[in-house]
């Protein structure tokens, strides 16, 4: 047999022997051992100081009272405290004067963009270009007015909301077909007439008869020449923009059943600063008046 290696004699063996093969009892490196002990001490400290043991409803709170929710709440509070001066300035400014203050309009646009993406984009689209039934906010056609004050009011009270006690954004078009106010034939005539207002070529007799129906039933809100009336939220009928679609069927449907689009009153959910910010944002998307 070869001579036994001598270099590890000092550490000895574990005492186990398998077919003559023995295992050296080399101790753990000292640094490793101390790191291990340090981890145990740290582990004990952690269990006592931080939330650790799950109980029936929640974990043990820990002596330091640490909680991640608490940290988030603190971050939010810090953020709001930082924004507070600008928000105060925004709320106290004249609505029409916001645009003249470069710093304020910059802040309002940034904050408004965030509000818009959170609360408005679902219906009006992330580009604010609307969808069928949901008005585009970047064109120049406004149901309730496109100046900053009108936009602010619309966002505040919403559209067709029961909380709108001053009837600022309330209107109700009669359902001319469903409620049998007009004959089916009269509806066809008036649809032809309305489409002719924006330049669609239509049958002359239908237009002439439709003009009479329009004069008697529609002109009081939509105007003599279909120019609309923003005071009562009556859409212009002579322009190129159709909220519910410009096809014959879509317009006939509007006359027959009427449409009652609604928007929430955001005063219930957003702060005045947020409403003003998003009003400024909408106003500076290209359609503001």
């Amino acid at each position: 047999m070869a001579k036994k290696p001598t270099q590890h004699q000092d550490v000895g063996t574990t005492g186990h022997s398998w077919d003559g093969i023995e295992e050296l009892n080399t101790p753990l490196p000292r640094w490793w051992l101390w790191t291990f002990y340090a981890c145990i001490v740290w582990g004990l400290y952690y269990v006592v100081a931080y939330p650790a043991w799950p109980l029936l409803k929640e974990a043990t709170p820990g002596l330091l009272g640490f909680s991640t929710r608490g940290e988030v709440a603190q971050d939010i509070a810090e953020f709001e405290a930082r924004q507070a001066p600008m928000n105060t300035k925004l709320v106290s400014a004249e609505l029409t004067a916001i645009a003249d203050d470069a710093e304020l309009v910059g802040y309002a646009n940034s904050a408004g963009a965030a509000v818009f993406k959170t609360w408005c984009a679902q219906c009006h689209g992330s580009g604010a270009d609307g969808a069928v039934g949901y008005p585009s906010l970047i064109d120049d056609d406004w149901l309730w007015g496109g100046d900053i004050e009108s936009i602010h009011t619309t966002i505040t009270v919403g559209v067709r909301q029961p909380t709108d006690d001053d009837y600022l954004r309330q209107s109700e078009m009669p359902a001319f077909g469903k409620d049998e106010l007009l004959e089916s034939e009269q509806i066809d005539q008036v649809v032809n007439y309305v489409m002719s207002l924006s330049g669609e070529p239509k049958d002359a007799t239908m237009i002439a008869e439709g003009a009479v129906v329009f004069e008697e039933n529609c002109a009081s809100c939509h105007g003599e020449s279909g120019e609309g009336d923003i005071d009562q939220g009556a859409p212009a009928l002579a322009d190129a923009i159709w909220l519910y679609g410009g096809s014959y069927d879509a317009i006939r449907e509007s006359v027959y059943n009427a449409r009652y689009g609604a928007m929430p009153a955001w005063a219930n959910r957003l702060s005045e600063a947020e409403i003003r910010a998003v009003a400024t944002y909408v106003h500076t998307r290209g359609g503001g008046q």
Partner: protein
Amino acid sequence: MSQTQPDTPPSLYAAREPVFPRRVSGAFRNMKWVIMAITLGIYYLTPWIRWDRGPNLPDQAVLVDLAHRRFYFFWIEIWPHEFYFVAGLLVMAGLGLFLFTSALGRVWCGYACPQTVWTDLFILVERWVEGDRNARLRLHRQKKWDARKVRLRAIKFVLWFLIALATGGAWVFYFTDAPQLAMDLVTLNAHPVAYSTMLILTATTFFFGGIAREQICIYACPWPRIQAAMMDEDTLTIGYRHWRGEPRGKLRGKKAQAADAAPQGDCIDCMACVNVCPMGIDIRDGQQMECITCGLCIDACDDVMAKIGKPRGLIDYLALTDETAEQAGKPPKSVWKHIFRPRTILYTTLWASVGLALLVALFIRPVIELTVAPVRNPTYVLLSDGTIRNTYDVRLRNKNGDERPFKITIAGNDDLAVRLEGVEGQTVIVPADTMSLQRVYVTAPKGTEASLAERVNFRIWVEDTSNGDRASKDTIFNGKGN
């Protein structure tokens, strides 16, 4: 016969042999002093150079303004999107290092590397306080901490600490207005980051220059390992003319020489080259990884050769080709032939090309910078009278120290008209040293070709009405056909 086994396994850890370099004087030492003065001078003084840029911009010649994301270098101002200049400078630094290494070996390590410069400075202080090599050795070996040893060590450490503090202190001045920060630092009003940066750099300087020294070069720095790839047989490094020096032996008087006829080389084994070496190596063992080619051994040996009346250059800058030639009895190549050869010329050409490209890029930097991003959400808007409108986010950079009026116009399609958001007329004022985002609306009336087309091309012009500078960007208008 069984193989003998060592009693203990070989240790993988080599304890540091302390190095106590002896003072030396000579041409290379003088050169190192000069280079140290220049490099330290540049480092400590640069932040204090003033450079007038007008009222709205900082007047510090070299300033890395992280808060405002600007880098100022004398007349050059770099914005984040121009960071390729910095990348280019780093490429040049790399190529420069290749060039010098292929020609002169580790000349960077030996003379200009901060590790070398500060270590040299720390050793200088150590020598002032504790004396030259022998005195320091004695102090080191003296077990007893008597009053003298404590005093010398304390003075040395305090001086080292002050140098380290000044080093860490100078660094932070590059990042904010130096005089203001100096005041704030003294009055304890500076930002905590300034103090913590200083503290960390003070600690690293003290440790690297005072304690670790050559171990940084040997163990921590990757450069010694990479450099071999850039050196060849023509590279000048420090070498020992062993064919001239060996067999070495104690200097013998005439009598002794006559008595002993054994041949003797020029090397008298005085250990001067070893004693002065800051890396603690013996260059007579040949060129080795630890050698930073600082040339101090050349100075030391030349000094000894002069004293014993032998020609200088027993230890000298040598290339491998020279060694071969000299051993074969031929004269070595001239230094210039080592320096001007294809490899160094190639490196120089590359280095110069990058430099030239950067210079050209610097001088053709546009006077007005704008980007035009068509808003694609939605691609176009239908207005009530049938007009088609497109929106563009135009970003205008004003890199001047004063506000600039930019007039925005369009060209290339007569159907199109332009309007700016929130601005009367077509001129927008961009404040000094900022970038403004301007929404620009372009409209095509109902029925025009542009309004019906899928898309038409046109150009947005921006003109500084105060001095007539113009810039333009081509973009597209999406019509109903889109």
